[in-house]
């Protein structure tokens, strides 16, 4: 790198004229080559993201055989179905409670890791991040086996303490609990890593100043740590809200929406209706209901990022 910089200054001093010409040429070519370099990206986004997104709006207005325009017919049909409202309710419960618990556990664990001497942090961080590394489809299979009704390792352990067998995926309430538990298990490490990075960026002097003022442990968290981490907490939560709300793998493998549709969320129900039930327009309409919530979260994230971009 130093070589390059050095050479250039020498050349620049010697041949000012050539430099001017070179720069002008480069500038002339710049926008053309920039366009060519971004062309594959633009094509990909236009053809495989924006077009399908608009296409699903179109699909949602067709009848099941996709031969007739029915306007808002699919939506009216959905509003009249009880299962739809069940799915709406469950998606909200699932996303909100999973994100809240992920954020809480991530925050607590990040604090514990931060407490540990620096040379041991790597080892702990390495172990705690494993759930995030394993493909969720694979780890959910392990959970399904842990929850198995007849040979369940969890129920065996509970029986050891004299607690009754729990129908982990058989009963509606327990199935909802299990799905959220697996999601929290999978997502909490992400929060932990983000918070840990944020904790490390809080200047040590602030804590010293707080200690001098006689702040106790709780006050230090409330008045120093949380305000300093506010940005990162907000953006991580919004990210996670999007991902959790659109989750498919965990629910699909663990319960496939059952028992009696009591764990279906938008993504799994859209799959059930659209692909398995081959009613593509109805499936498209179901998944479109995710858009408003995703859009609100996206707008907040974008605002935060552009704000930070302007500050720097």
């Amino acid at each position, binding site marked *: 790198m130093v070589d390059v910089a050095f050479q250039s200054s020498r050349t620049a001093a010697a041949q000012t004229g050539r430099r001017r010409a070179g720069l002008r040429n480069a500038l002339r070519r710049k926008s053309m080559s920039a366009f060519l370099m971004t062309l594959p990206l633009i094509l990909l986004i236009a053809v495989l993201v924006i077009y399908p997104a608009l296409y699903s709006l179109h699909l949602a207005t067709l009848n099941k055989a996709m031969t007739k325009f029915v306007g808002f017919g699919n939506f009216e049909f959905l509003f009249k179905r009880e299962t739809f409202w069940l799915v709406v309710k469950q998606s909200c419960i699932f996303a909100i409670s999973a994100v809240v618990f992920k954020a809480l556990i991530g925050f607590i664990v990040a604090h514990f890791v931060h407490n540990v001497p620096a040379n041991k942090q790597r080892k702990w961080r390495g172990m705690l991040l494993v759930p995030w590394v394993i493909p969720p489809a694979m780890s959910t*299979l392990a959970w399904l086996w842990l929850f198995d009704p007849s040979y369940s*390792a969890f129920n065996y352990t509970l029986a050891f303490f004299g607690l009754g067998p729990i129908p982990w995926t058989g009963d509606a309430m327990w199935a909802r609990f299990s799905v959220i538990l697996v999601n929290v298990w999978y997502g909490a490490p992400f929060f932990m890593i983000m918070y840990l990075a944020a904790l490390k960026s809080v200047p040590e002097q602030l804590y010293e100043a707080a200690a001098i003022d006689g702040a106790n442990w709780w006050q230090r968290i409330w008045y120093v740590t949380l305000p300093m981490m506010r940005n990162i907490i907000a953006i991580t939560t919004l990210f996670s809200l999007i991902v959790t709300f659109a989750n*498919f793998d965990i629910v699909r493998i663990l319960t496939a929406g059952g028992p009696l549709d009591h764990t279906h969320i938008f993504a799994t129900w859209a*799959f059930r209706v659209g692909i398995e039930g081959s009613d593509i327009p109805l499936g*498209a309409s179901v998944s479109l209901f995710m858009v408003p919530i995703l859009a609100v979260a996206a707008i907040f994230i974008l605002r935060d990022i552009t704000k930070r971009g302007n500050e720097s």
Partner: protein
Amino acid sequence: MSTVTIDKSGPTRKVKYGSMSRDRTWALRWSYFFLTLFAIFSLVPPLYMLITSLKGSAEISAATNPWWVYHPTLENYIQLLTSNQFLRFFWNSAWVSIIVVTITMLISVPAAFALARMKFWGSATLATGVFLTYLIPDSLLFIPLFKMFAVIGDWTGVQLINRWYVLLFIYPTLTVPFCTWIMIGYFASIPKELDEAAIIDGASWFQTLTRIFIPVALPGLIAATIFAFTVSWAQFLYPLVFTTSTDQLVLPVGIITTLIKGDVFNWGQIMTGALLGAAPPLIIYAFLMDYYIAGLTAGATKG
């Protein structure tokens, strides 16, 4: 800390200091205690995969302690690794992931370079658009994409549905936006003087990219590569929708559709398959943890 102690008189300082350090050791012990609990919580499923994978089918259905292997056997591994079907899934997954990583890098590195360095009409909007695309989840697009490829098949006669290579078109929608986004961040942090010097020396934009930007931003490139690989390896929804024949399946879908036969779960083989499927990302993670974490935090903190 030192300011506190200076204010106090001699004896009090000593007592105060002692209690502080005792608080510290207790805080440390509690931290270790809870960290151990959380580590157990995190590691139970993968460990249970390992435990079950070492059991024979008789032991799995026996009423013995499920957390212990009494008669360890490798029969599950031997069965899976000699089954052509399972190897096929593995190869499909490997091919899809490797090709997708290559495509992703070929698209996103030049695009990120152009967006970070060559300000042109609409470049800021495009960068924001890339980020927004990253926020669009797979569960929103799978139905229109499926229909789209079905229609393309009807029109052109090129049947892409139920072929593993259809995934090569679809996975980049998940990997390219994120990789472009973090590469923009890494490229933007390179001092402007470097590429100005190169341009003055008569280097073309392409040479500036390959000789300066890629070597300097190599850590970012590795993080993006790891991300693209992990995402393509773990993707479950798209292959479930787009592929159905057993010779076209990738690993996650293959394990779930072929090892679960109706209501019969062959848990020994399922857990072995799941462990083998989780192995490549875990191995990468074990060796390149720092890059992995850099990529993870870059997504939300760079910008």
